[in-house]
């Protein structure tokens, strides 16, 4: 795979370099990008959305994703809350930078599958603090990287700290982020923290990837915390829990189709 998966929902693989201490920021990000993440993955996800009054809303969904050559396909079925039950979201994520992703959403209230414009990914995913851009792939070549810190500690592990900035305003607009700082663990090339400056906003989003677990050789965070802050004030936060993660299952291509999107789980 040539693209850097932002790792919100994706896999976290081990890829230790014998000369890790000498890597540049570009080389580190390339290795993050190059990690194997399995041919396919099935997982249950729960998002807890918390506003500044500590009121919580819960979203539950089931995600299936598979590689299709250089491309990838994913389908998400929403289970909770009741008013979005059976809503489905199908994405064909193309490796070719010149092609926009294909996205369709099945809306049970309309009994209709709608094509969705996929180029602008800056919108909130289901009201969470994750943008659609956090769920799909980035082009590594769209960003400039610089190593900010050779050594930092995150939960007791050594990590590089890398500054990342889109090369042009178009990428900032599409992803919704003006710049980022990323913490990459040295022993497994897993992104364990990210701090994203929201484009056209004074807000900053903090992402933390917690409780890494290794499944069939692939590292996954059991929990991802996302906080949106205005100054020191936490405006909103989201806890994403990934459960029952299964890799390399026998998945039919028909699972990633509009037919299945409308049939539901």
């Amino acid at each position: 795979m040539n693209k850097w998966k932002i790792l919100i929902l994706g896999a976290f693989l081990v890829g230790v370099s014998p000369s890790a201490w000498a890597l540049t920021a570009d080389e580190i990000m390339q290795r993050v990008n190059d990690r194997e993440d399995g041919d396919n993955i099935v997982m249950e996800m729960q998002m807890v959305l918390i506003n500044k009054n500590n009121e919580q809303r819960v979203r539950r969904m089931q995600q299936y994703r598979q590689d299709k050559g250089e491309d990838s396909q994913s389908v998400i079925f929403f289970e909770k809350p009741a008013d979005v039950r059976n809503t489905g979201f199908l994405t064909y994520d193309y490796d070719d930078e010149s092609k926009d992703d294909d996205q369709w959403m099945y809306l049970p209230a309309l009994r209709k599958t709608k094509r969705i414009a996929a180029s602008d990914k800056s919108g909130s995913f289901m009201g969470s603090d994750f943008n659609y851009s956090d769920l799909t792939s980035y082009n590594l070549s769209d960003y400039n990287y610089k190593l900010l810190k050779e050594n930092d500690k995150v939960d007791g592990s050594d990590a590089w700290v890398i500054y990342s900035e889109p090369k042009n305003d178009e990428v900032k607009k599409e992803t919704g982020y003006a710049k980022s700082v990323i913490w990459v663990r040295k022993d497994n090339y897993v992104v364990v923290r990210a701090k994203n400056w929201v484009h056209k906003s004074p807000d900053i989003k903090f992402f933390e990837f917690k409780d890494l677990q290794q499944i069939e050789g692939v590292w996954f965070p059991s929990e991802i915390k996302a906080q949106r802050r205005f100054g020191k004030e936490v405006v909103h936060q989201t806890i994403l829990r990934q459960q029952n993660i299964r890799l390399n299952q026998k998945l039919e291509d028909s699972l990633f189709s509009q037919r299945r999107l409308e049939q539901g789980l």
Partner: protein
Amino acid sequence: MRTFQKGVFWLGLFLWAGTAVAQGESLDELLEGFGDSPSSQQESVDDLLDGFEEPEASTNDLLGGFEEPDENSDALDDLLDGFEESSSSVTAAESLSLPIGLSGSTGINIAYAYAQPEPNPDKPDYRGFRKLRLYLQLEYQYNLTPSTLFFVDGKVSRDLAYQFLDREKYSEEYLQAYEQEIELRETFLSTSLGSDTDLKFGRQIKVWGKADLLSVVDVLNPTDNREPGLIDIDDSRLPVTMTQLDYYTGDWNLNLVIIHEIRFGKSPEFGSEFYFLDAEGPAEEIPTETEYGIALNGHFTGWDLSFYAASVYNDQGRADGSFQPMLGLFPDRIVHDRLQVVGTAFSTVEGSWIVRGEIADVQGLRFTHFSKNFSRQDHVLGAEYSGIPDGALSFEVAWEWIREFEPTLEDAPNEQEQSTVTTAIRFQQDFLNQTLSFNVIAFQFGEFGSSGSSQRIGLDYDWADGLNVGGGILLYHEGDTSYSERITNNDRLFADLKYSF
């Protein structure tokens, strides 16, 4: 009252425009603070990064917010504490425990008419609360086998407004239609016949077409038209008993439809403020012959294409009757003519835009007082822009054109023009992590609304998981048609509460 209506409409537009201006200001602030303007970008980034070589100050700005073991740790600890607290306090909300497969919703729909004049003593009073409808909808889904599903959906509602209205001013038929309703909605059995074929039998809703607001090929299911612009989207299409066979191969799907239940849209009853005439119309004749449809749908990278053909009854009835020497045609029934519809639809995506189009050729149209068949060509072109963060703007224009038109069709009772244009615009903007939604939907009938127009402006708020409250205003504007004149005083405020479980 007109001034008030215009005021509300422009307030909606002002809110929208204000949002855009506010975003522009935020951009300036962002550029100022972070130095991201194109001219200064590189310099600012270099400055930012250079700062890391001289320990702390700039670095801390970038790294701050997580655990930061340096001299600014007090402030950063505060931020960190927030993480810890949120983690420990988060628990999944308890939801209503229901038997597997059972779900539904309950709520109330309220409408308040404020623009109606005081009626004559013998006429119904259309002022005040026109709807206080409580409802309960239950769905049950049971998987007989992994590929066979049984689904049933029923809804019961009772309108309490008629407890407070002068019931004697309404006919029994009217009260039966509006006061209490029990509806068997989608109820079907579906199964897969092999890996590429699906069969579905029962009461169903099947949507054709790509257009969202003004589709001309979505001809299979009738719609509820009793309160134009105010029907919940879940209830707007009415299911009919049909058999569907779907065959899938590659990027294509062939959809065969046989409609066994001939059912027409729900129209306003005589006595309603939305009724078409001063006098009660004749009874409706319901034909019995089966309807058919076939669709071929293709889904490709960046675009979709569909072809449709159907033999269905015209949902819009026409008055028919016997010829009287002195009176001419005396209408004694409403009939529905058989139509042959052939059409195509496409949608394509380009950046943040989706462009949609539909064309349909309709044969077999008939009008009151005319013995010959007419044909009509229908077109829809629309676009949706989703480059607005958490917002979307879409518009559609439909144009219908009757061939071999005769000028007398423009007279009553047909009031039919050869060329009819309808425009629809919808705007939605979400706030507060999609808990609050501002939405506007506007229709213009005729060129520049010459035949009337309507606007619905509303707010929806997700109070909690599954609990939604909303409200707004619905405005009707008079045009050059008798129906738009008739309903122009039906402006109303509305409010809804819905709990889904």
